[in-house]
């Protein structure tokens, strides 16, 4: 019986993880906050600088949880397609910000800010 309970628990966990992963939840992987489009153009150092510039403009957003909520919603879901659309919609709506001369969507600027915070935290260790 003990073995059955243990095995059942493992089985349910596996199914749960599969479902969660399928839906885009990733509690275990490294949350890659690099803006996808921008990282095709800028290296990590530039992304960090842009993030820093955004946080200087909007110091109230210097909070990884707040940024994650803004970017990812209530769940820590990584959904690249959503970001690509959000970025495009930002440009269509004129929701842009100029950081060190770069004309960026607000979404990708926040991604840079989050990338800055998370990467700085990582290096702090």
């Amino acid at each position, binding site marked *: 019986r003990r073995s059955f309970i243990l095995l059942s628990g493992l089985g349910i966990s596996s199914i749960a993880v599969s479902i969660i992963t399928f839906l885009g939840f990733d509690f275990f992987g490294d949350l890659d906050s690099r803006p996808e489009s921008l990282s095709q*153009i800028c290296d990590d150092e530039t992304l960090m600088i842009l993030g820093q510039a955004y946080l200087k403009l909007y110091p109230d957003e210097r909070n990884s949880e707040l940024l994650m909520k803004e970017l990812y919603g209530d769940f820590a879901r990584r959904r690249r397609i959503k970001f690509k659309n959000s970025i495009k919609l930002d440009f269509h709506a004129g929701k*842009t910000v100029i950081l060190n001369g*770069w*004309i960026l*969507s607000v979404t990708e600027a926040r991604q840079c800010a989050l990338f800055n915070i998370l990467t700085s935290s990582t290096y702090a260790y």
Partner: protein
Amino acid sequence: MHTDARTLENNSVIEGDVCIIGAGVAGITLALQFVNTRRKVILLEGGGFDVDMEMQELYRGKSIGQRYYPLQSARLHYFGGTSGHWGGFCSTLDPIDFHKREWVPYSEWPIQYSDLFPYYRDASRLVELPTSNFDLEYWRTTDPELIPLPFNEKVVKHKMLQFSPPTRFGKTYRDAIVEAGNIFLYTHAKVVDIRANELVTNIGSVKVKNMAGKEHVVKAKYFVAACSAMHNARLLLASDTQAKKGLGNDRDLVGRFFMDHLEMMASEIFLQVRQSVKLYRPWVFRETKARAELRLSDSEQSQLQILNATAALMPNHIAETTPANINSFSSDAEGNVKGWDVLDRNRPMFFQRWKKEKFRYKHFSFFTRLEQSPNPDSRVTLDGERDALGMRRVILNWKLTDLEKRSLRSFHEAIGLEAGRSEVGRVKLMEWLLDERDHTWPDILGGGWHNIGTTRMADSPSKGVVDQHCRVYGIDNLFMAGSSCFPTSGSANPTLTIIALTLRLSDHLKSLDFTNNMESRSGLFQ
């Protein structure tokens, strides 16, 4: 026929039907239209057939405003004029350039784009372009690799430029002028004074001088000044024997509204993916036939309330090593002209490199050409100092307004927005554009060597110096030719439009009445 005026007996009197003052692009274009007609045309050129530093020295003046090129080399004082160091860039003005724009003070021409458009065809022939078609779609049919970036054309449009060989008018059209039986070219015949009647309603003659100390008089039925914007104004202001403020200057408009294009690198664009940009290829001397530059649509300009502008994509690795024009242009006029000969000799080497070019880059600088807002305080006036022929020298005060910098910033922001919207890439503004409160300009700002606007065209004498036919208000028989007549500069290089406007002027001159007692003096040529 050609005569060196230094060889004439002093105080000779020369007579014709039309006297054209200046044998640059406009003067030669105008003279060519009269070849083999019944009119006797006197074409006066202050210089000779080669660049002469003594003649260039006559153009030396002072520049007291925004930093400008040395005046003694910015324009060339010889047969062929400034086509001697012209780069060959050809484009048409845009219809919006002719409109009254509420956000651009003193904008509006008394003619429309449609009035000038028919003349662009013959203008294109004169500068040896293969076609007068500047439509992007036409050029795409000539080469399937000319693929535009996917901008929304309602916001960002493609403006085509073509490149003349470049046509050196002094060389290309010398024989046609000299061999024409009814065109009388006088070199070393600099006009230093225009003489009107007592009421200043009619010009009777012009006074000519040269470095040999000779003076002559030229009489004609009609006179056309084609000396470039700076020197058309100079001549009118200097002709103050009968009109104290200068000819055509009752309302103090001669010399005002001097314009040039503002040309500089202003931002960078980073494409999302490396792709073919052959349509936007950088200009290579004698190899590039055409290319596209980006401009904002008329509706976008209207919405943003900004001036017209174009941006050329320059691969960043080239842009980084290209000095700003204002820092590299020499005061040595002769050297500038000879520099083109050096380029010509090195063509085979450039061509070999160019043949291997794949036009696939990701990172560009935007070389921007911005319209200047017409500004009455940007002007040409006369100095007390006189040149070797006794003519008062020029003082140039090239003055800009806040509208230029705001336009430049908004222009690049708009392209940046559209680059993001269309997933083309991202734009980065140059640092000196970031502060909206900063109206100063960086050291890299230069003009395009496009002198425009000093005898502007308008629908009334209270607003301009010349009427829609380029006739000086109040004076029956005096006309201005060239870019001095443009009320606005647009964003296009002006040479093609100078020629088109001159062709239009020639049509008008040919329609005028030449029948009076001048006939017996000038002689008709069958």
